[in-house]
């Protein structure tokens, strides 16, 4: 075995040059590509994860919207029902009130008419009776009766005073 120092030095220099050349022209672009691929894979995984989360979120939103719509529809129906019932009640009540009012009015009218009729009847009766009385008195009164009447009035005056 012979140790050749020239070979030794040349090998060191050659290895250094090879290292620099490989590093510059071969491995640097290769590492770049590998890093890029790593990034790509990472991005795709992230993207997939994100779209999955989005899909889940959308599904949840849809469910909630559906729930909301269902609830609103139920509320609307309920409100309509109560409103309808209330309106019906109101209408019935109003009708009843109107009827009562008309009835009362009618009764009042009847009463007043009746009173009026009674009053006029009374006036006529008293006039007629005065008339009749005066005619009877004109025909039948005599001395005796007149005396009796005078006495009676006097007596009445005497008890009243």
């Amino acid at each position: 075995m012979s140790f050749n120092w020239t070979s030794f030095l040349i090998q060191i220099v050659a290895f250094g040059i090879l290292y620099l050349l490989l590093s510059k022209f071969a491995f640097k672009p290769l590492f770049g590509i590998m890093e890029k691929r790593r990034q790509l894979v990472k991005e795709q995984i992230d993207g997939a994860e994100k779209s999955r989360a989005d899909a889940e979120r959308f599904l949840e939103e849809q469910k909630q919207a559906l729930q909301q719509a269902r609830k609103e529809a139920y509320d609307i129906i309920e409100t309509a029902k109560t409103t309808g019932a209330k309106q019906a009640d109101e209408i019935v009540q109003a009708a009843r009130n109107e009827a009562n009012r008309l009835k009362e009015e009618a009764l009042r009218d009847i009463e007043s008419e009746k009173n009026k009729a009674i009053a006029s009847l009374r006036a006529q009766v008293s006039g007629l009776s005065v008339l009749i009385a005066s005619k009877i008195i004109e025909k039948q009164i005599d001395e005796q009766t007149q005396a009796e009447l005078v006495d009676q009035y006097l007596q009445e005056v005497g008890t009243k005073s």
Partner: protein
Amino acid sequence: MEHLSPIVIIGGVKFDLAAIFMIVLTSILAFVLARLSVRNLSVENPGKLQNFMEWVVEFVSNIIGMATDFKRGRVYLTLGLTLIVYIFIGNMLGLPFNIITEAHHGHATFLGMELFMDGKEEAEFAWWKSPTADAAMTMALALTVIVLSHIQGLRHNRKHYLKHYFEPWPFFFPINLIETLAKPLTLGLRLYGNIYAGEVMISVIMGMGFIGIPALLVWQGFSIFVGAIQAFVFTMLTMVYIGQASIHEEDH
């Protein structure tokens, strides 16, 4: 007969032409492979080579994750990748064939340069071998990463890095020092020994002639396995050493 390395001497310095050639070839192959794999980069539809290279990246990331904390060890990913690709290609290159030239009459030339023949009259030169089957090259790699680990230890983790030489007690310092010195030696020589032994074994089996073909097939297959394992082990240990020196674990 042992094969000689084709060595030329220029200005008193020995240049191992085969080693230089193989270093350059391995580096070019590693670079071309890496470039081809990033030629049509695509995020969604990676090509076959890109897939393969991404698998290698994941593999080295796992090594770093096993050895230290991946988040903080991430800056060494390129280092680990360069190491594993370079060493694996280097280990594989020496396996399939060899190129040998014969020289006679005491001299041989390459591109007009005189080859060093160690005073012998006849020689065979091996032009093709794994760059990792040479101790000089593996030690170069090992020292590079060990020195790097010490620098990073001093830069990012100075207190614990310096303290670990005196743990568990101060008189352990020599032992810790020996351990520190042994690290690059074991790291470099393990790789060298495995690959060199594999190539020696191949040349031995080649000497058996036609009878050796089944054995050669088996041994080549095993050498591919060893080459892959050694590339893995070297990268793993590099990350372990760097992690020990520069990344302080919070729990101790």
